[in-house]
């Protein structure tokens, strides 16, 4: 069968439209006027929401397939922004991003699964208490350990690990105890209580996603503390190991881990599909804002100085170990949030999604979009999904049942060509609108005392 020319053109139009949407969103976000910003963000949200909900005849303007691509684009943008922070801005080559993505997805999904299917808040409460306690332990210990100079990193790691394990044990006991108090609020089938309502589920979902992000952040802190002392290549291998460990644990979650609901390699079903476009858009927006605010601050400049020259950064008084850890934790937090959003959109989680090979996707995206370009990452996340899944897969699918496999030949070739022709990535260091660096106006400087 011949490929459908109309479909090809339609797909190209879609890619252009989605990129124009990203451009427009970033432009209005960067507007000087507060009202333009608010109206613009609402409009950017609204256009997509209308396209999803308005039906012409029986078909929404944006069909289910394209809507799915949009959601995946949004989560991919969050994951890839996190990785760009770690690799593009901080210079630490990491293959662990999908491990944190998976952790976030499963953690959030498990909490809401218990909530909807077993009418118990236990998992959510345990998760919530764990991230609060573990966060407090880590921050407290960090303050305390600052008093000691020349503390070996493994000793510090051991202390943190013990602290977090204790926090976990306390969270399990306290969370379950608290759940037995809260659970009656779910009511019975005949007389549903307040927690059985949709609003309560939405709230539980938001808490679960935030906790998933925090959970990924706690794990990344523990993992990153010793591993970030390794040089860049060794760090890459160690993070690859992390992804494999997470994947193996997820495949065997019903046998070696006490989570039969996750169903191991068969995949977890029954996750409430509560991610609406509103939530996906909101979380993406938050991630973009946090990332941009971090980059254009003293912390962000320190982060980039570590990428540029570690030795010089040390000589400038920058705590490079602490800075690497911060970038790694924030990047993993983004991945965890994205995982939570993704799980509740798709409603089904398989360990394969978070495996070794898909783990390269965000890496390809940030290289494609431009290392150290936030705009490039966001644009490439949406563009990549619409191109690879939206266009190539369907187009090749029309040419024969086995033909879609060709896309794994075609896109590496495209990547190779890009690396040869434009090694800095499609957008290099170009940023659009909101993500552009604040302009420093040259002033008529008097040589007044700087000290």
């Amino acid at each position, binding site marked *: 069968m011949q490929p459908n020319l109309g479909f090809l053109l339609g797909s190209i139009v879609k890619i252009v439209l989605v990129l124009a949407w990203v451009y427009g969103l970033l432009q209005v976000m960067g507007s000087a006027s507060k009202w333009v910003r608010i109206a613009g963000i609402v409009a950017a949200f609204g256009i997509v929401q209308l396209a999803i909900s308005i039906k012409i005849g029986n078909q929404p303007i944006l069909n289910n397939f394209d809507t799915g691509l949009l959601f995946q684009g949004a989560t991919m943008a969050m994951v890839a922004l996190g990785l760009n922070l770690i690799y593009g801005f901080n210079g630490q080559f990491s293959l662990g991003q999908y491990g944190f993505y998976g952790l976030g997805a499963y953690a959030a999904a498990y909490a809401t699964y218990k909530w909807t299917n077993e009418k118990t808040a236990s998992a959510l409460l345990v998760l919530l208490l764990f991230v609060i306690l573990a966060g407090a332990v880590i921050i407290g210990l960090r303050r305390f350990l600052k008093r000691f100079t020349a503390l070996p990193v493994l000793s510090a790691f051991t202390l943190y690990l013990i602290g977090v394990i204790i926090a976990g044990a306390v969270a399990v006991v306290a969370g379950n105890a608290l759940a037995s108090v809260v659970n009656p609020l779910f009511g019975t089938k005949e007389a549903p209580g307040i927690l059985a309502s949709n609003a309560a589920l939405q709230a539980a979902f938001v808490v679960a996603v935030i906790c998933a992000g925090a959970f990924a952040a706690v794990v990344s802190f523990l993992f990153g503390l010793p591993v970030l002392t390794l040089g860049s290549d060794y760090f890459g291998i160690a993070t690859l190991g992390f992804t494999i460990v997470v994947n193996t644990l997820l495949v065997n979650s019903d046998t070696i881990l006490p989570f039969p609901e996750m169903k191991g390699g068969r995949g977890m079903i029954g996750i409430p599909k509560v991610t609406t476009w509103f939530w996906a858009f909101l979380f993406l927006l938050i991630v973009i804002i946090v990332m941009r605010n971090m980059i254009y601050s*003293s*912390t962000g400049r320190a982060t980039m*100085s570590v990428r540029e020259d570690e030795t010089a950064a040390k*000589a*400038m008084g920058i705590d490079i170990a602490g800075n690497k850890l911060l970038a790694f934790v924030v990047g993993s937090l983004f991945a965890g949030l994205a995982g939570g959003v993704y799980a509740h959109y798709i409603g089904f989680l398989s360990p394969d999604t978070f495996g070794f090979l898909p783990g390269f996707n965000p890496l390809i995206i940030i290289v494609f979009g431009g290392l150290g370009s936030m705009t490039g990452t966001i644009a490439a996340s949406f563009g990549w999904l619409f191109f690879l899944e939206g266009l190539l897969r369907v187009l090749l699918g029309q040419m024969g049942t086995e033909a879609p496999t060709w896309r794994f030949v075609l896109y590496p070739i495209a990547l190779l060509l890009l690396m040869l022709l434009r090694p800095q990535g499609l957008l290099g260091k170009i940023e659009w609108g909101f993500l552009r660096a604040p302009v420093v106006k*040259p002033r008529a400087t*008097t040589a007044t005392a700087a000290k």
Partner: protein
Amino acid sequence: MSNDVPILEIQGLTKFFGGLRAVNDFSMAIRRSELVGLIGPNGAGKTTVFNLITGLYKASGGEISFLGASLAGMEPFEITQLGIGRTFQNIRLFPDLTVLDNVRIAYHPHAGYGFFDSILRTSRYTAKERELTEQAQDFLAIFKLERFQDEIAKNLPYGEQRRVEIARALAANPRLLLLDEPAAGMNPNEIMNLMELIDFIRKRFDLTILLIEHQMRVVMGICERITVMDFGEVIARGTPKEIQSNERVIEAYLGKGAGHAA
């Protein structure tokens, strides 16, 4: 502080790289506001001494104290924050960042706002970020670099890069500045400018300077005292005049029996 109390005191500093003794029983004291030169043939261990002072290397033995406090076991960034700044033999700017950002990075330890201030864009962030940027711009103006502020550092001419590196080191507000071969690769004109610059910053910021240099014009022209190293050991100390006529120094540089050739 009285002028006689050393700002930096090094006692019996030793560093092994495997079996190689790079620095052996190295001692020196620098008093406040002095400009001291550290010279010696290639491979004598001068840069190793710098790396030991700044904490990039851990000493195998010996003691370094700065303003009376021992630096043992401290991380490089802590030592910098105590007030020791340095430049590098082969310029180490942050090549892909702007000149202004290069200098602003030096302000990071005392930026006055934290991570959460920047994420939430608090009023403290806005005020301190503006203050810090203005300080950095003033600083660039002192070094006549303000027209380069938005340039990417690696695109600057060599001499200007060296100026940026010195400006950046000074922005961290050091008491003691370590300059590692600042004149390397410079033409005579640039060297003249550099000597003026060193003299200027010393007075302007009330600095104590320790300088590694191969250009004898620079060393003999501006240093008050000179320490000479060879094979990791101190072979001579004294004023430029004394060093110029020291037999062992001439021998180390030119070989035995070349005394008259100096």
